[in-house]
């Protein structure tokens, strides 16, 4: 089963690559137009570099300056930097999301009061909250730690990551059937032990996809926040910097995009490992 999954995965990627290069090779120079609307892109070298050019580009120096590192090294470093921030944001988002879900599941009134805000929070554009986070952050002093732009980026990543976790965990914590809840009551145990014995294990099947979604959100949040905050060193700034070079070096802007895809996969994969550990709890749905 596992082997088949891997093969299918590779086939999927290969199909995309083949479609790209075929269209690039055979498609019209000006792209496909429907009226005035271009429905398929131009196939010029500028707009669509060949896939192998993009791969090759990784082996070449970032700039023509002497001593410039390989594009691969540069992208790798930037990816690790962004991944680190995304991981910090994810952790923070998971903690906040779980706590919110806990109080919402405990107190009906808190759920009614809080849930609309949780949903609304996701409609605020990131660009708008970035300066706010930075300004408020600069007022915060924790011991001798000074608020840095990295902290701002992590907080913004957390802002995106907490949402699926809060919603998923809330659904999971409220998922036990009436029979199970009656049973816990008949055992004479209170809210806290019911939480540990029943609600948390029952929430695992809801929690795992939520955590994975949270990881993907944290990666996007980190990369976008790097741009909004203006933090150097990560993929966000690299996307902007490399885009400038597009006219003379069309394959170059694609390098950090692949970096972002890669850390997204790593993040989702790491959560997948968590799923393996929690496997016993994924069993649900006994026939009555």
């Amino acid at each position: 089963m596992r082997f088949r999954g891997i093969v299918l995965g590779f086939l999927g990627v290969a199909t995309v690559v083949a479609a790209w290069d075929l269209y690039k090779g055979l498609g019209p120079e000006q792209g496909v137009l429907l009226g005035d609307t271009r429905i398929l892109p131009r196939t010029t070298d500028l707009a669509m570099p060949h896939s192998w050019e993009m791969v090759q580009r990784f082996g070449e120096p970032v700039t023509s300056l002497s001593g410039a590192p390989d594009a691969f090294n540069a992208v790798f470093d930037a990816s690790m930097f962004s991944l680190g921030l995304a991981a910090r944001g994810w952790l923070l988002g998971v903690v906040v999301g779980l706590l919110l879900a806990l109080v919402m599941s405990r107190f009906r009134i808190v759920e009614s009061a809080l849930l609309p805000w949780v949903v609304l929070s996701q409609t605020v554009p990131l660009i708008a909250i970035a300066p706010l986070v930075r300004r408020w952050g600069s007022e915060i002093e924790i011991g001798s730690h000074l608020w840095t732009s990295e902290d701002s980026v992590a907080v913004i990543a957390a802002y995106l990551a907490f949402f699926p976790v809060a919603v998923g965990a809330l659904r999971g914590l409220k998922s036990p059937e009436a029979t199970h809840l009656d049973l816990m009551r008949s055992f004479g145990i209170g809210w806290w032990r019911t939480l540990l014995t029943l609600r948390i294990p029952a929430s695992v099947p809801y929690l795992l996809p939520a955590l994975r979604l949270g990881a993907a959100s944290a990666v996007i949040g980190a990369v976008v926040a790097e741009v909004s905050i203006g933090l150097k060193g990560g993929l966000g700034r690299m996307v902007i910097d490399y885009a400038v070079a597009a006219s003379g070096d069309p394959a170059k802007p694609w390098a950090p995009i692949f970096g972002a895809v890669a850390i997204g996969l790593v993040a989702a994969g790491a959560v997948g490992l968590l799923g393996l550990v929690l496997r016993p709890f994924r069993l649900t749905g006994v026939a009555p």
Partner: protein
Amino acid sequence: MNDPAIQARGVHRVFGKGRKQVIALSDVDLTVADGEFVSLIGPSGCGKSTLLRLVADLDASTSGEITVFGKTARQARIDQEYGIAFQQSGLLPWRTVAGNIELPLKLHGVNADERRRRVAELLELVGLSDFAKSHPDQLSGGMQQRVAIARALAESPRLLLMDEPFGALDEITRERMQNELVRICAETGAAVLFVTHSIPEAVFLSDRVVVMSPRPGRITGIVDVRADGMVPAHDRSAGARDEEGFFRAVGEVRSLLHGTPETAVTARGVDTR
């Protein structure tokens, strides 16, 4: 030991307010003696589950008093005086059969050795010793229900509350489970309050059958099966289903259910299904 297992006096339970008000139970008096097997039977919505839930302190009565072994229902629940089983087995799918049965013991701080010993005993009792390590989704409906009964018995309660525990089973499995329940009750000597929709099931299992009617939910009559010449519930064998007293009791319960005056004797020998 002289306290009855259950004593309900003047119990009312009203759901909702105003126009939507439902009188689920009206002026219910019922006593279940220690070690006695009592069934509740009646059409859907007559308040059987409501009464059982009140005894279990899963719900509170609007007025009236319920005591379990002389204690308030709440105290009895906290003291684990009863074990309970529902129509849905309510097993935790992520726990093994043994893990499910030992759950109440674990929650109440019984040590691991003692738990293992008790679980082995209970598995033996319900005939599932080979399935200790299986998960509930690997068992048939009847087996799951037996696990649920074992769990209800885990702390050797003197009272068992059962709400249509065999309701979802086929007729053959059902009769086998009934035979087993009689055996288990004989071994444990527990009192039982048993909710069912099946007249033969109620008569076969019980010392007394309590017939209820809806709107408002109340007790319309009680058939003492022993008075019809059957041995006490805990001493029955599968053959009791063919005895004359069985059919007489079935007829009495049926006429009470249909609201016709006592025509018990004419019911003798009729088909029980």
